[in-house]
């Protein structure tokens, strides 16, 4: 298998230069700047209505843009209609042609090439095999299950060997189990064909699992564009931090700051100093320190911890089998924070009301201001 993430030096496949889109007087895309690399699995993630589909459709050519430039493989797409672009799309509804067979659906895009019958059949069968539907060609398309439609849609798009495959929430209509299975299959397929995939999703977990890089969008703008780990560990704003996973916030006040370091007084943690790379935008929600539930460690009786500690009271316990979630109140703070602990062998589950020690490390905290 090809190693996953394409390097930062990989050639650019798509470039957005200050792209704006107006629907009447509604400003749907508000200055999109981004580059997507060749062979990358790229996701557009954001809440409903933030413009993900609109941005995807500007690549496909279904939607003209009001301002800016979309470059595909170095070529300006302004005057290239959708049917001439080297992109193919998997629609949210799959858009399988109900009056055709599976094979006719998959071979639809090859119609114009007027291939000999045997060659066409061979290509269709090859595409069907790739998505695990070998031998399904003669079936009527309208009689397929959701997961099978999904695969037919994939085969139909990939058979044309596009430079970019666009997927608009392709998994949202599937049940949880099927969705997880298809996530793995999509990753496998992407590595196998090496085509740039651009996935639209509002499911943060799906984006984190599948993508090389993710663009988080709010209200027609890209708030952050980075790989999954950076997005999770170092969100650049409170909005992104809130949207992805759980982030605890405790109020803080700035004591003094220099170019490289900000010193604050934070509830429960006292005096802290943050390097410039640990500072994110608070989006007018007030200065606060932030940390993920698994970043702090609940220490059991007698457990050695070579770093800093605070003490806290357990106020709520939610037991999940493999994990336990605790709402704890750190001494000196006004609100509870959520912590998580993996229930590895020998680790006790704390009861409500007990006092615990919480181990932490200043490098793991983020300052929102």
């Amino acid at each position, binding site marked *: 298998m090809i190693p996953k993430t394409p390097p930062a030096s990989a050639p650019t496949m798509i470039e957005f230069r200050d792209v704006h889109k107006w629907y009447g007087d509604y400003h749907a895309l508000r200055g999109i700047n981004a580059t997507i690399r060749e062979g990358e699995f790229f996701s557009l993630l954001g809440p409903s209505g933030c413009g993900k589909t609109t941005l995807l459709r500007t690549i496909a050519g279904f939607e003209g843009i009001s301002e800016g430039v979309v470059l595909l493989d170095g070529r300006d797409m302004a005057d290239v209609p959708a049917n001439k672009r080297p992109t193919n799309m998997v629609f949210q509804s799959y858009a399988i042609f109900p009056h055709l067979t599976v094979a006719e659906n998959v071979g639809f895009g090859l119609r*114009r090439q007027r291939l000999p019958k045997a060659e066409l059949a061979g290509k269709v069968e090859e595409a069907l095999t790739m998505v695990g539907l070998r031998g399904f060609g003669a079936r009527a398309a309208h009689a397929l299950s959701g997961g099978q439609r999904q695969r037919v849609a994939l085969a139909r798009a990939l058979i044309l060997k596009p430079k970019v495959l666009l997927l608009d929430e392709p998994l949202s209509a599937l049940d949880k189990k099927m969705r997880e299975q298809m996530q793995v299959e999509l990753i496998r397929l992407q590595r196998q064909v090496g085509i740039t995939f651009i996935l639209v999703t509002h499911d943060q977990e799906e984006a984190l699992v599948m993508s090389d890089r993710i663009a988080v969008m709010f209200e027609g703008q890209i708030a952050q564009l980075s790989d999954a780990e950076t997005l999770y560990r170092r969100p650049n704003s409170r909005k992104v931090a809130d949207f992805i996973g759980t982030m605890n916030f405790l109020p803080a006040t700035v004591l003094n700051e220099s170019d490289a370091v900000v010193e604050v007084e934070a509830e429960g943690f006292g005096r802290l100093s943050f390097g410039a790379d640990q500072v994110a935008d608070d989006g007018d929600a007030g200065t606060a320190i932030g940390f993920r539930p698994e970043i702090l460690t609940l220490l059991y009786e007698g457990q050695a911890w070579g770093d800093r500690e605070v003490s806290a009271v357990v106020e709520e316990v939610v037991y999940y089998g493999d994990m336990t979630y605790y709402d704890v109140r750190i001494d000196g703070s006004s609100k509870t924070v959520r912590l998580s602990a993996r229930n590895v062998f020998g680790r006790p589950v704390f009861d409500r009301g007990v006092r615990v020690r919480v181990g932490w490390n200043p490098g793991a905290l983020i300052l929102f201001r």
Partner: protein
Amino acid sequence: MKGGIFRIYTIAYLVFLYAPIILLPIFAFNNATVIAFPLQGFTTKWFTQMWSEPGLWPALQNSLTVAISTAILSTVLGVLAARASTRYRFPGKAPVMGLIMLPLVLPEIIVAVSLLVVLLGIGVPLSILTIILGHVLMTTPFAIAILSSAFQGLDRSLEEAAYDLGETPVSAFRLVILPLVMPGIISSLLISFTLSLDEFIIAFFLGGTHVTLPVYIFSQFRFPAAVPVIMALGTLLVALSVLLLTIAEYYRRRGIAKSGGKDTGGFI
């Protein structure tokens, strides 16, 4: 008995609705020139005699010309209107669609008289063409109603998918949209054809000297001797109408089943 009155009402309603139509074939096969009971025995002579009536052939020819032209024209207009109303948003769409559908509930005599006044006013001679014009006006709302439900059931992304896979807007329409709305088109053709074939008032007012089948039938009632023949002709027309409407409904339902939609009522 609970619901008894409604049962009686229902039966009475059906009797009034269908008894005259049932009388039609009964007298068409009755061996007597007088339309009265008791029946005088079975005969098929009225059906054979029918074909030698001098005025019948031109009337039939006119009717077929009108009905076929009407069916095609109103279905084409219906396709355009249904496509526009389901696909595009434009200002004033609701009132425009409402106005197009109005002839559905307007008394036909009003439509016929006003058309006549307008046509005479601007000096258009009355002919087969003017009947077709009136019939298109009358049947287009039906065509739009049938075709709108066919177009509405279509996923917009089907067309985009075809476009995405390299087809032009025209070939995407031909390869994807047309086959999917074909049952609706057939249904619309058949229903417009049937409505036009049976229509009397507009044909009577706008036809001038050109006589369609229903107008011919009406004119023949002046001659008592011709009545059994008219009964025979009427029987054939009823049979043809029922047949065509049944086929139309079959296609309409098949279209709904094909696109996986739910039946929300039709004309039958």
